């Protein structure tokens, strides 16, 4: 069975500080990796994804994540956060060869303080 672990349920950080949201997965087969974000009162939105190729992937709003196969991790980072980044972040995987169902972690609440 595969699972996704987000090691921090809440991450408080001051504006303009760097942040890392941690995600580890377990799977006996290859996986595709995703980060979704849920802003207050909105639906889940795709932030970035790793399917193949370069292990470092970036989003349009400054987030990046690196696929580390040896450590089975896909941590999300941003060098300088904004108040508007306050949201719930979910790491998720799709098992290779599967129907495309997402297996989600429990989520990390990023609280950006002024």
């Amino acid at each position, binding site marked *: 069975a595969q699972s*996704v672990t987000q090691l921090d349920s809440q991450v408080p950080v001051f504006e303009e500080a760097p942040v890392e949201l941690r995600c580890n997965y377990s799977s006996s087969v290859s996986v595709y990796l995703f980060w979704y974000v849920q802003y207050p009162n909105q*639906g889940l*939105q795709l932030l970035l994804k790793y399917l193949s190729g370069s292990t470092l992937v970036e989003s349009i709003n400054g987030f990046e994540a690196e696929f580390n196969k040896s450590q089975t991790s896909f941590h999300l980072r941003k060098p300088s956060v904004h108040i508007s980044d306050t949201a719930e972040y*979910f790491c998720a995987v*799709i098992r290779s060869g599967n*129907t*495309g*169902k*997402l297996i989600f972690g429990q989520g990390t609440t990023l609280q950006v303080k002024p």
Partner: protein
Amino acid sequence: GAGVSQSPRYKVAKRGQDVALRCDPISGHVSLFWYQQALGQGPEFLTYFQNEAQLDKSGLPSDRFFAERPEGSVSTLKIQRTQQEDSAVYLCASSSQDRGLGEAFFGQGTRLTVV
């Protein structure tokens, strides 16, 4: 519409009542997924449709849960004889690609409260 629409947004049901939750995916999207999100948890997969075919229903928690997508567009998730443990947010997502490796677009969900 421009996005995935779910209705109702909120539903309060008495224990034992049947409920039906509706999902209008983005027009033309092949893949449709239902997820259940309990309070403080990540979404958990319920079922997957490719057009009108239900290809994976391994996440449905019991035979009280039933989903359909008869014409390959709108989908309905039905829960019979609701129980308190069914209280959760039910999310629908659609994707333009088979197997959902493309971006999955989520609706805002239906919050079901069973009293």
